[in-house]
């Protein structure tokens, strides 16, 4: 985890109006932000919009950020809030996708973006994607972004206990799905071959 100090210098420069600092801040953080947004926001076009919104918000509220606090979790909290706002806006879109979540098949997403795969290569990831949003969110933060449960509690502004129970519930569901998949496919080896 990065020291808050590393960012506080950069932040000071950004607030002073340095373009280079703005650029560097983007580079340093986009590798965390982009995949997270991409995973939680289905549509690739929307992903770019949401990421843009996140960074606009970031530069706007950077002045109020307390530099003694850790920066990355704060940014991730901002990210989560933007994603949440996006989800609320496109509720009808999500309704359709929620139905898809219930279907126990790999779903083909129509990604027009050149860098993204059409299907999740890892069935486990596909299963994660089909988790209820709150559980999925916790899994991503903990296993993809590698935040500790305490950090996640801060990021999402929820009690630590809630974080633990969500991750626990997610793992349970994933284990169940694995078992079901094995039953359907008949062999344990299949799981690893794919």
């Amino acid at each position, binding site marked *: 985890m990065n020291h808050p100090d590393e960012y506080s210098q950069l932040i000071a420069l950004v607030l002073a*109006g340095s*373009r280079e600092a*703005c*650029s560097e801040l*983007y*580079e340093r953080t*986009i*590798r965390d932000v*982009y*995949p997270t947004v*991409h*995973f939680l926001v289905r549509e690739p076009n929307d992903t*770019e919009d949401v*990421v*843009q919104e996140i*960074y*606009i918000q970031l*530069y*706007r509220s950077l002045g109020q950020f307390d530099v003694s606090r850790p920066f990355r979790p704060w940014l991730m909290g901002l990210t989560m809030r933007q994603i949440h706002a996006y989800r609320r806006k496109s509720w009808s879109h999500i309704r359709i996708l929620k139905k898809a979540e219930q279907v126990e098949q790999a779903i083909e997403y129509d990604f027009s*973006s050149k*860098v*993204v*795969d059409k299907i*999740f*290569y*890892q069935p*486990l*990831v596909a299963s*994660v994607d089909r988790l209820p949003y709150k559980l999925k969110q916790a*899994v*991503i933060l903990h*296993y*993809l972004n*590698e935040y500790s449960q305490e950090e996640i509690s801060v990021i999402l502004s929820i009690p630590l206990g809630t974080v633990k129970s969500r991750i626990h519930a997610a*793992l349970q569901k*994933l*284990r169940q799905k*694995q078992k079901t998949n094995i039953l359907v496919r008949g062999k344990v080896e299949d799981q690893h071959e794919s």
Partner: protein
Amino acid sequence: MSLEEELRTALREETRNWIAPPELKGKILKQVLSTQGGRRMKKWLVASIVAASLLIPTGAYAGYHYLADSIYGSQDNVVQIGATQQKYDELEAKLQKAKQSYSEQEFTQLMALLKELSSYNLKIADAEGVLHPEQLSADDQKSYKSLTAELEPYFAQLNVAGGTLGAVPTLTTFDTLWNEQRDRAEQILSQQELAAVDEIINELRVYDIKALDLEGSIHTDRLSETDLTNQKQLIEQLSPYMKKLGIMFKPSS
């Protein structure tokens, strides 16, 4: 591998190629940097406009601005020259009327011409106030003549367009005055001010009626002492509003 390990690996693998397109960075930085500058500039603009708008009204309403002052300097100067307070008031009334009727540009022009004219007049006027243009040098005389020529159309307009704000204050009831001026007042005064004046005029009407005879001529002697005092009070209440409208009047008594 535990499930947790599996998860980490799977997610990492899956998202390995999930890179933000480079155009996105350009878009974001462009927007962020432009709002940064834009908002600062906007704030500066807003601040300066607010400051300006705060200054201007206070300047305009800080007491009555005698237009004639800009020509003569002050009312005292006028008396020294030999004019009377009444003539000064008349001039003021004319100028106010001119201000209302002319465009800003025309009016500024007029004022400039008048100033020039008065500087000449000061040189050539004698103790009685009679003008002797022959006292000017040849060059000055020429300028003086062209000046008067320029001003002629203005004077013609002003003197013809008589109205109740003419050179001579005509004796009139408040009611009549207000009826004639109310439309103009609607534009100049605020809602509240307009309502206030309406009220005062209504009260004054009562005295108007008392003082009026069948033919419409005014007999102020018909008003009792108390009536006159009340009337005077009401007129005083009216004066700030009347000043705003550029109406000057004096009770006939």
